[in-house]
């Protein structure tokens, strides 16, 4: 146990030394004007590189470097979003509707043309927000359910018509497609028949697959009927269609993921080590 602790200390010291050296090299880069800016830039890039490698060390296993980066990430990012929320929502949206003096203090334009009732209405979220904070008082903590109820009501009320419109009706409408596109009779179909990717046969296959796929996919999601008989066959085709969908999404996503790694490694080699 003591041994591994010592080992850890040695590793940490070595890593620290390596990064300090890297910082010095970085700062000396472009020697002609080794100014304070260069030193600062060197430090910042070195820190970024250190954090990058610390995260990658997780791939080997949990270790103090990852833990350090993780804890720093949590602390800094929580404060980042808090600051952003404060300045953009409270100052950006609420303050302009309150009072010219407050708006003046934050040096933000006071919105004058808003009718009074739209100003007064802003009391509601503020009161609800304060009720939410009452959670910290054990005796009345149940009152924080009110703002929660407000939010849940909003979510349900707004999402129902939204999904109905864009995901249900719109998608059904999109599926009203002809299964015989550019159809000019059987004669023309057979005389021009080919397995070309841009030929009519391919187009017909596409549309039939979409049609059958959507219907069978829906059958798979059916809850109130046992998947047996013809229903079972349809639901089986439905699963297959879903599996193709998943496979396609996987194959398609991989490319984007690799380019993220290319980006990070380019940062390490180019911005930090200057070897590319």
């Amino acid at each position, binding site marked *: 146990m003591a041994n591994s602790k010592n080992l850890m200390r040695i590793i940490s010291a070595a890593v620290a030394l390596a990064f300090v050296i890297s910082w010095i090299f970085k700062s000396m880069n472009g020697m002609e004007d080794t100014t304070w800016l260069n030193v600062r830039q060197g430090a910042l890039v070195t820190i970024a590189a250190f954090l990058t490698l610390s995260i990658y060390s997780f*791939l080997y296993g949990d270790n103090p470097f990852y833990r350090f980066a993780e804890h720093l990430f949590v602390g800094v990012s929580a404060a980042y979003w808090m600051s952003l929320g404060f300045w953009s929502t409270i100052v950006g949206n609420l303050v302009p509707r309150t009072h010219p003096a407050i708006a003046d203090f934050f040096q933000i334009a006071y919105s004058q043309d808003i009718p009074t009732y739209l100003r007064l209405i802003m009391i509601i979220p503020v009161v609800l927000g304060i009720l939410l904070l009452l959670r910290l008082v054990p005796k009345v903590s149940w009152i924080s359910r009110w703002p929660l109820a407000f939010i849940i009501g909003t979510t349900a009320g707004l999402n129902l018509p939204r999904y109905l419109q864009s995901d249900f009706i719109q998608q059904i409408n999109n599926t009203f497609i002809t299964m015989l596109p550019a159809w000019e009779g059987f004669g023309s179909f057979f005389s021009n028949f080919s397995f070309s990717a841009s030929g009519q046969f391919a187009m017909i296959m596409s549309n039939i697959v979409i049609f059958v796929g959507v219907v069978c996919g829906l059958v798979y999601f059916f809850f109130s009927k046992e998947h047996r008989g013809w229903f079972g066959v349809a639901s089986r085709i439905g699963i297959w269609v879903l599996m193709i969908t998943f496979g396609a999404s996987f194959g398609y996503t991989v490319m*984007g993921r*690799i380019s993220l*790694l*290319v980006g990070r490694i380019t940062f390490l080699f180019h911005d930090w080590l200057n070897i590319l």
Partner: protein
Amino acid sequence: MTFQQYIPIIVVGIGLIWIFIRSWRGQDVDRRIVFSFIGLTVALALIFQVMFGERATAIVRAAYDKIENLPEGSRILLSYDFDPAMAPEVHPMANSFIRHAMAKNHKLYLYSLWATGQTLLQESLTEVLEPEFPEKEYGKDWVVMGYKAGNEGVLNVIVTDIRKMYPTDVHNTSLDSLPIYDGVKSLKDFDLLISVGGGKPGVKEWVLFAGDRANVPVAGGSAAVSAPLLYPYYPRQLIGLLGGTKGAAEYESELIREYPRFADIDTPALRMMGPQTMAHVVIIAFILIGNVAYFRGKRKRRSEV
């Protein structure tokens, strides 16, 4: 490919064979090996600048052939409809189109429907068009029209009359004093419209509001995420499409192959594709190896029972 570009391929190949043998014997390959393998692949490919000769797929080749087969002096419109965030993917496409059009002695008209497109357009001019084609004359062989606000509304107007929206070019020179605009009244007078973009307005808007209405062929380049939405327009309304970095790389490699003068140009898309292609092959190999090992293990278990 130079010799040093083979180094990473050889290293990765040997590694894959080793993993395959291990899996074949039923030994477990630790996830850390898998991790370091993919990291190594990308890193080596980047360091040794591996590039593969991409071959244009039909949909990219169609766009290439169109520019290739137009008679010399045809009018090609190229619109920059993207922002810096998309630029790594689509900017190389725009540069390739410029190179190809200029090399074929076509007339090039540069537009932009995105405010951010204009600065990126400027980059193309200073980095590609002006240094590589000093013999081409502004106003005669190419012209910059720049950005106009109004999204697809702009297209609605210029489809019948360009001068109504653009009385002058980007330098405030009247179109009538630019020889390149002799006999050009509207989009109908063009031979090809190309939009490079990834959002709205983009290729789709050029197809619906310009190409279809003016009855002029449209080609396009688009970011990978929005490319699938454009396939339905191919080949009738959209004669060719470059999708994502891969599409851009295919076009670049066609240019290099067929034009000796472009042999030494910078090809950012091909460079980006090298590591990605290697990583893809490794992932495909992993799937294959994993399955071979799985079936072998299954047969073994069955024979033991």
